[in-house]
């Protein structure tokens, strides 16, 4: 047998901290339209999970119904998915995390799936602070049924058919902040850097992360008159902060100016740095966040950034005070009380 010499610099494919390659985080081939913003979001999720070194087998990907909710098929095939019913991903995700609180849950929904049919479950998920990364892939229209308005469509936005939306939008970020989500932001599927940093911070956060990602529908909502088109978003985007993320496992000492940057230490010790582009913005102040979001609507801005973050609030699964081992796999000896317990119960009823 000959000796194989390995040249320096050709040490095989690059791996992350748990020894997996980016291929290990890939999904099936997308069946969405070419240029769909959703595909870019799937790519960012793959990168973020890879770079954070998350074990794919411990990730679950529940989703609802719609174009957005199909995307769990296009990333992380080594993770369990549950493509459930329309507007009800939230409850399925909640149940799964009750069964196994150790899972990392990335729930994918759309604007119709969340703000229209799913708004009931959405608001209750937010108030529980369930540990989930809830992503709305937000294009303002129903794609699979060929382009009707959803409840996030802006006032005055125009459909391809010329129909003008005459109702105000539901701002899912404002709702989430008001109701108790502890990490709320908006991004744009075309902003690779910002979305990546926000997703990595989301993975580090223990509590409800609600990210509304504006993701243009190239087929039904990318025309003149739409407020969710690539062109409109690029022209009207107002970036609140420059978002950067330093994971706990990277021993990097980043210099920053405390006057110009808000530094947030996450649950696992990683750091979120928000370099202020608006001087007086404080992402720990709910009232300020809601005021700024209202201003953005009045001015016709597409405001992006981390609007609100609170890494200290207890998550829903913490509050339930469950045993450490997932409920799903508890042995019978812990889930079926002994004969003496039944005897005692019977005695009380005599």
């Amino acid at each position: 047998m000959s000796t194989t010499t390995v040249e320096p610099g050709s040490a095989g494919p690059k791996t992350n901290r748990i020894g997996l390659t980016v291929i290990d985080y890939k999904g099936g081939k997308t069946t969405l339209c070419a240029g769909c913003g959703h595909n870019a979001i799937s790519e960012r999720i793959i990168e973020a999970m890879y770079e954070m070194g998350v074990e794919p087998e411990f990730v679950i990907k529940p989703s609802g119904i719609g174009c957005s909710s199909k995307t769990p098929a296009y990333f992380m095939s080594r993770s369990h998915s549950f493509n459930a019913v329309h507007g009800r991903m939230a409850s399925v995700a909640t149940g799964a995390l009750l069964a196994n609180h150790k899972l990392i849950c990335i729930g994918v929904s759309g604007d119709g799936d969340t703000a229209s049919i799913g708004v009931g479950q959405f608001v209750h998920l937010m108030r529980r602070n369930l540990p989930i990364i809830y992503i709305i892939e937000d294009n303002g229209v129903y794609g699979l049924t060929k382009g009707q308005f959803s409840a996030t469509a802006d006032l005055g936005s125009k459909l391809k058919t010329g129909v003008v939306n005459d109702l105000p939008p539901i701002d899912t970020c404002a709702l989430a902040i008001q109701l108790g989500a502890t990490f709320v932001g908006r991004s744009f599927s075309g902003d690779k850097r910002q979305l990546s940093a926000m997703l990595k911070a989301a993975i580090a956060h223990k509590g409800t992360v609600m990210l509304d990602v504006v993701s243009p529908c190239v087929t039904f909502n990318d025309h003149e008159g739409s407020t969710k088109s690539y062109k409109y978003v690029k022209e009207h985007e107002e970036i609140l902060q420059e978002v950067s993320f330093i994971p706990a496992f990277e021993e990097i000492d980043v210099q920053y100016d405390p006057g110009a940057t808000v530094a947030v230490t996450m649950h696992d010790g990683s750091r979120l740095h928000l370099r202020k582009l608006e001087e007086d913005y404080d992402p720990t102040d709910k009232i300020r966040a809601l005021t700024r979001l209202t201003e953005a609507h009045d001015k016709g801005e597409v405001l992006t950034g981390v609007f609100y973050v609170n890494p200290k609030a207890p998550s829903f699964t913490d509050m339930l005070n469950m045993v450490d081992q997932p409920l799903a796999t508890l042995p019978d000896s812990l889930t079926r009380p002994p004969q003496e317990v039944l005897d005692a119960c019977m005695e009380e009823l005599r």
Partner: protein
Amino acid sequence: MATTDVVPRGSTGSTGRTRIVNDMSIQVATVNGSGSQSSNTVLLRSIFQMGVPVSGKNMFPSNIAGLPTWYTIRANKNGYIGRKKEIDFLVAMNPETATEDVMSLAPGASVLYDEPLALHKLRNDLVFYSVPYDKLVAAVCPEAKLRKLVKNMVYVGVVANLLTIEMEEIEKAIRKQFAKKVKAANLNLAAAQAGFDYAKANLEKRGAFYIERMNETAGKIIIDGNSAAALGCMFAGCTVVTWYPITPSSSLVETMIEYMKEYRIGPDGKATFAIVQAEDELAAIGMVIGAGWAGARSMTATAGPGISLMSEFAGLAYYVEVPGVIWDIQRVGPSTGLPTRTSQGDILSTAVLSHGDTKHIMLIPCSVEECFTMATDAFNLAEQFQTLVFVMSDLDLGMNNWMSDPFPYPTTPIKRGKVLSKEDLDRLGGFARYQDVDGDGIGYRTLPGTPHPAAAYFARGSGHNEKAQYSERADDFENNMERLNRKFETARSFVPRPEVTKGNNARIGIIGYGTSHWGIGESRDQLRDEYKIETDYLRLRAYPFTREVHEFIEQHERVYVVEQNRDAQMLSLLKLDLKPELITRLRSIAHITGLPLDARSITDELTSMEGK
């Protein structure tokens, strides 16, 4: 309204010449929110403690305070504990309904009333007793605001005296009822004693009814079906409960919370369960399904309106093949219907709940003991068959007090079904989620969090092939639906078998289920004793129907299907299963009044259909 929907059938009581021992129903007519529940429980327990078989049924309004409510206690030496139509002893505490309550009694019945109501003027064929409650209460209860509550304990004492219930047993029952509140116990005991003494000194017993000591309740317990189900679920290894309050199911989960806090929290203070009150029934079932998918033994409890809301998710669980247990404590529909009255009205819609070709396993308990034992059956079947299992209880069973033998400790092991572990996957290399490897229609599943690269599959409510991949191919769809059907056929051999009771060479069969059982048993005796009609009886305990059901129908010329709904729902389900020549043998006895089905109604209808 009065709850005795009867035309008097002739005298059952008398005015002192005959003695009727341990066979009567006592009805207390009162106003809800007046605290009469404690008094009624004491009365029930005292009779029970004297060894006489007894049952208690609460007929209450969908209201918190101020509307009429009736509590009926039936004592019966033969062990008949179903509802009896006729009331033998009325305790008229509610001025609003007193006249109607008295007018609907059969001649010979006794009436105990508050003196100022002067009910004795209404009829001359009843036995009347009057008691000056306010005077008696004032003497024993100095605190004016407690008098309303204590007043009810006075009638307990009076009834005890008039029906010869022993005062020692009343005391024992009061001590149990107010176990930790000695002061309350003493006050109530004084009130009962005042009633007893007043009756002894002032009332001459003229009614025919007596309670005498027997030995038929030794070792037995008294419990409602919802509490029994809660206990059953705890011992079935349930780990996740998600629910939305709805009458008459709420007490199932509320009792379960109490039991789980007591017995399923470890010494370290950590819980081996999660119980979450959801925002609605849609979320409750969504959580059940999410938890079942991720490996928990999960459940919810609801009633008809909740079942309707859960329809879409039920189809998802059927098609994705996710386990979960749903307790349906049936009440009267359609729509809001009568939320506090009982029915068996969800049978047909639950069997096929959701759109498309969907079928569900249903278990049907008739007793509190079955509420307990079927809990383990339900969780095991749900995980073995990777599907929802509906336990079809009802308000009568769930919310009323029933006498029972103590529940046996479950001998059935906790069965988790076909779940592949990391080691299995190491050995197999991979798996196809919906492949029928064993020929029983049931595939193998993995749980999220299984540390193997081939563990994941894509659970989806959209069309899929054996590998759980999205597919719109006709053959994939058809194969999958046929396999699901095969799985349902397999379930026929695993669900609880029916209980068959044979008569003497009977040509007539009766099929019943759930709480109809109690009326049917008594009716069969009436049919034999009064009409010389022999019957065989099959009590269904599950859907899909097992082989025994077909055989039973084949063995009888006519089969009466007795149930508590309008549209003969179980009979309709049977028709879907039976050979055409057997369908014509079925007759329907379907009752829907909101009150538990009584024996006399069955007997009357069956004999009339038999031309008697």
